[in-house]
């Protein structure tokens, strides 16, 4: 109860920051970073959903992200769909693929899922480069048109400036995040947590983990796919670099830092880790080296995220003061 209250206030605070941000930093550059932050917030949450709540480590989220992006772009450019149904189709296709690989690999083990998730992302990357008739090969699909919204009676709104696109990506992100939040808070979400915390116990209660795991994978793939479409229509181009391992590394750091299973913690980590590299401006290889070391340090010392740090310090202080008292008693 208390956690969900913290999460609601934290979420509202982050939303307020996002709204104020666009007025304080109206430059196209700053708004561009804001759009990237909204993208990463959803992408990191998709990993948090499948890993932090579903208990399945996944390297597939960036694959879903790229699949959604390519699907939407191809539908818009080649078949003349409008942006919104195309983005939705991208998310649905990603979800279907996710449920399928999840179903296949979970027949063996959670490790098999991790392996297949990495292989899937790599295969999608190769196909994006190779299936030129569909994806235009390494050059990708440039010149994606700006999404529009037409409300009857009003003139259609075109999202063709950084400012308008910022509002579009913020709205879509918040909608996707609320959807995840709703599922996590529902009975299904509590089942996921129960399975993650103690699988044998959950099974003994007659809970079959598979449907809940597939729900986590499917929903996480859906939001990753939709935000992938939103991401590339801002760039106005999609090319194979969307499957870059960098995204996978970044969202893994965000989830571990924010704490797997902590909704607002991961959102905050996503914002910080979008803005920080922009400010530091280090080379890609140095960044990857630092991220790798950070990943090892987090997994070794803080497996439940940085949010655990104050709690752990408090516990240590309590233990040592207990020790003092015992000595005084003796």
């Amino acid at each position, binding site marked *: 109860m208390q956690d969900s209250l913290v999460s609601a206030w934290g979420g509202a605070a982050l939303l307020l920051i996002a709204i104020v941000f666009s007025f304080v930093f109206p430059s196209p550059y700053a708004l561009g970073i804001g759009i990237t932050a909204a993208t990463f917030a959803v992408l990191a949450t998709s990993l948090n959903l499948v890993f932090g709540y579903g208990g399945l480590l996944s390297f597939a989220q960036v694959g879903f992200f790229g699949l959604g992006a390519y699907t939407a772009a191809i539908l818009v450019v080649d078949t003349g769909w409008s942006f919104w149904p195309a983005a939705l189709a991208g998310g649905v296709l990603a979800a279907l693929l996710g449920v399928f690989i999840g179903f*296949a690999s979970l027949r063996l083990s959670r490790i098999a899922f*991790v392996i297949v998730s990495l292989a899937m992302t790599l*295969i999608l990357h*190769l196909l994006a480069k190779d299936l030129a008739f569909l994806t235009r090969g390494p050059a990708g699909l440039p010149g994606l048109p700006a999404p529009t919204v037409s409300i009857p009676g009003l003139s259609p709104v075109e999202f063709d400036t950084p400012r308008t696109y910022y509002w579009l990506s913020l709205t879509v992100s918040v909608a996707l995040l609320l959807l995840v939040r709703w599922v996590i808070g529902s009975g299904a979400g509590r089942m996921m947590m129960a399975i993650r915390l103690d699988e044998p116990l959950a099974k003994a209660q007659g809970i079959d983990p598979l449907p809940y795991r597939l729900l986590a994978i499917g929903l996480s793939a859906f939001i990753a796919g939709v935000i992938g479409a939103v991401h590339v229509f801002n760039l106005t181009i999609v090319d194979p670099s969307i499957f870059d391992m960098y995204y996978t*590394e970044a969202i893994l750091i965000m989830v571990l830092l924010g704490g797997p299973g902590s909704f607002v913690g991961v959102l905050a980590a996503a914002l910080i880790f979008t803005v920080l590299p922009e400010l530091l401006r280090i080379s890609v290889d140095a960044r990857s*080296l630092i991220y790798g070391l950070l990943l090892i340090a987090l*997994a070794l010392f803080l497996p439940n995220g940085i949010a655990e740090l104050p709690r752990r310090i408090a516990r240590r202080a309590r233990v040592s003061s207990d020790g003092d008292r015992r000595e005084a008693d003796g």
Partner: protein
Amino acid sequence: MDPILLLQQLANGLVMGSIYAMIAVGLALIFGVLDIVNFAHGELYMIGAMATWFVAERIGLGYLQSIPVTTLIGLVLGYAVYRLVRDTGGSIERAIILTTGLAMVLQSSAMLLWSATPREVHFPAATGLFELGPVVMPRVRAIAFVAAAGCIALLYVFLHHTHLGRTIRAVAQNPRAAAMVGINAHAAIRLAVITGVVLAVLAGTLLAPMYAVHPVMGLGFLVKAFAIVIIGGMGSLLGAAVVAIGLGSFESLSSLWLSAVAAEAITFVLMIAILLVRPQGLFGRSARL
């Protein structure tokens, strides 16, 4: 189709398959004793290849002289991997995150040290061609095949006919029972992890004189090795070796008709199909270690 061409492609495939086998068998060995998957395995192989180039070409010691150095690097890295994953408390996800972090560190360090430029390694003692009936290939490839097959044969003898090797198999089959009969499980696991890593590093060393080497070569091989161990049955060394040879041959033969990407895609589909139809893999758990 020209039968000689087919035979030629098959021979090339066997060479590549034997390199895959060294990588996949090491991965399966580590999984067998610890139930964890080493996501840094592809980068260890890359380090083997790049270190070979560095010692043989940049320092100029020559190819054969570089082998003891890369073996030593393999031993050190093997111990590092063991230290990293030994206390993960049975959390497979944590072990994967740790080895993924190690993979990132290894790859970015290689990039920072040596840049992404592809490098060539020369093996002057093995220039010229090797001919066996109608099959012709560069002599370095024939030597690499013999060396890789020799490594795997040695591993087999080690695991089945030496006391130390048997302790590894005992721990893989039942760690508790092994501890009860007085086997030091930690020592056996350490030995198995180091052996697996050295195999990957040496696979890189064997590949180096055949193809250009570069710091981003690791990931593709990791995914191939994953497909091999899933199709062969996780933890099955025999399965890993047989499927690796099969995959090398399939890739080589299919290159006559298909693109490399199509072959990768077929391998992925095959992996999914195995998971759906026979999740324990072709060789199953019974063939473990």
